């Protein structure tokens, strides 16, 4: 056991013993790219699913030793505890600037950010837009749950009209508080945006599609043709004041009406052909 693993296991809230699996057939495992740390995310929170599919993608692409993640302020700032890769924590809103700095000096590493809506679409709007406008060869994973999770439930730039939060207790009034920002549509207009898609993770089917999108977003870094942007519309049971099951209804009935799922911008056929060539070469 490595020194680091020992250290992590000693931290509070961690699994301290291996479960006894004698006599069971193992059909489901956490990815190898995960540490043994128990997640701090609330029960039913979409972050854990998003982390898991990201971990699976990194494992399946075989890039655990070649990837650097950037986790800025927000619930996901502790992502480095869970995914066993190199990480940089970033100041609130600055993940894409940090990722730019990393990718520019280490172009051969895969670099991604994992950001929430307050981070990416409020305090970090300038960094987000300019990173994508430069077409930085990084992958942005954007977790949109319409609320500030870590600071416990304040209004986010993506909170829906009428949504009650701790700083919009009477509901978001778009006349005075602005309208929820559709970031994917906004940034898809930038020539530097190579691939823009909006996904979800609150059902197995959605999670499979989101996983594919993250995988593509990372694979496209082999081309160096621009920024990949994967928005994931998800929930926040604690701050929406709902049970996890109620949040699924809310996502389906409210969030997805305003934030429709699907690809907003796709790579050209030529680009995909070029990628196929590169990957054919990798196999050899």
């Amino acid at each position, binding site marked *: 056991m*490595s*020194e*680091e693993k020992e250290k992590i296991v000693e931290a509070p809230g961690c699994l301290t013993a291996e479960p006894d699996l004698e006599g069971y057939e193992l059909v489901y495992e956490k990815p190898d790219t995960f540490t043994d740390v128990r997640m701090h995310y609330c029960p039913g929170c979409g972050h854990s699913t998003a982390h898991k599919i990201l971990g699976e993608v990194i494992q399946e692409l075989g890039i*655990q*030793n*070649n*990837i*650097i993640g*950037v986790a800025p302020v927000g619930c996901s*700032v*502790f992502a*480095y505890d869970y995914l*066993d*890769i*190199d*990480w*940089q*924590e*970033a*100041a609130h809103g*600055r993940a894409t*600037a*940090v*990722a*730019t*700095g*990393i990718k*520019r*000096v*280490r172009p051969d*590493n895969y670099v991604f950010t994992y950001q929430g809506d307050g981070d990416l679409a409020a305090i970090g709007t*300038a*960094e987000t*837009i*300019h990173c994508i406008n430069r077409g930085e060869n990084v992958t942005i994973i954007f977790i949109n749950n319409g609320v500030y999770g870590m600071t416990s439930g304040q209004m986010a730039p993506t909170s829906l009209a009428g949504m009650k939060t701790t700083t919009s207790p009477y509901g978001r009034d778009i006349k005075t508080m602005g309208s929820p920002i559709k970031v994917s549509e906004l940034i898809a207009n930038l020539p530097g945006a190579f691939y823009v898609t909006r996904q979800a993770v609150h059902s197995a089917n959605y999670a499979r599609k989101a996983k594919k999108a993250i995988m593509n977003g990372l694979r496209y870094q082999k081309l160096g043709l621009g920024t990949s942007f994967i928005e994931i519309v998800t929930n926040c049971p604690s701050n929406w004041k709902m049970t996890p099951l109620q949040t699924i209804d809310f996502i389906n009935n409210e969030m997805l009406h305003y934030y429709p799922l699907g690809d907003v911008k796709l790579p050209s056929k030529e680009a995909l052909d070029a990628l196929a060539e590169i990957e054919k070469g990798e196999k050899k």
Partner: protein
Amino acid sequence: MEQDIRLMKGNEAMAEAAIQAGIDAYFGYPITPQSEVPEYLSREMPSRGGVFLQAESEVASINMVYGAAGAGARVMTSSSSPGYSLMQEGVSYIACAQLPCLLVNVNRGGPGLGTIQPSQGDYFQATKGGGHGDYRLIVLAPSSVQEMADFVFLGFELAEKYRTPVLMLSDGAIGQMMEKVVFNHKPLPKTEKPWATTGKKEGKHRSIITSLFIQPEVMEKVNIELNKKYAEISKNEVRLEEIHTEDAEYIIVAYGLSARISHKTVELARAKGIKAGLVRPITLYPYPYDRIGELANKAKKMMTMELNAGQMVEDVRLAVNGKIPVGHYGRLGGIIPSPEEVLENFEKFIKE
């Protein structure tokens, strides 16, 4: 051996030195009076190697520095007062994450948008914090175009030795004026950075660059570790220049541009029979408290000359610790006093 001697602006000399010091990347944003730096580097770096990137703001550039330094690159940024203020959040993160890098503030007059003329109004910001939290920067104060070049090398050497950000605090005059500058610096060797994020290689401990230590016990441990480092820096890295201090009764303490003016003032005073001397702190952090305190045992009075309302004078008072009177003379708003004007006020202070 033929020497590489050039006539250059301070900002350009610094930019040239940065390339010669082997920077991997520069991230910056235009602001007067330091725009020559990004202009020079954007012109030179494409053919001489390294990344030049004009960021969308100083907020972005300092965070690009964070990312690149965290990934093991030799990296710098430069700005001037209002822009450097914008960077303070990132500087605090960089200090806590212990990332070596070089920051440059070509000080102009403030507060606010202020003036584009030279000033030393950012002394407090440079030496007493700037950003939030308990941290220090090594602060180097050049007083010539030559030193703007030299301190790039010294800055990176110290930054990498102590794994800490280094700030060069220049000003609009030193940055803008042209002087002879000699480039004869020894190449800076690349330092090992096993802590850098380069991908979690086989057998390599994974690297996490962070300034987040949410458990108080862990945060305190980091604070203590940082302060141990600052104590080490204070012990080893104090730098200053002294002129005519061996028998000085009246001493001017000044750094950067003010030290140049005060040097002349001291010569004028000596010509009039006043036993005057000059102390020029080269490192503003760590500050030469011990030496100034020692000089106060023999001198009768000390005065700082600063292009501000009296900032470094507080450190001189700390160093002198009440032994002798300490005064201040300064001009504000970007006005530069002549040596004669300083002498007049120095004499007034002596007679008080």
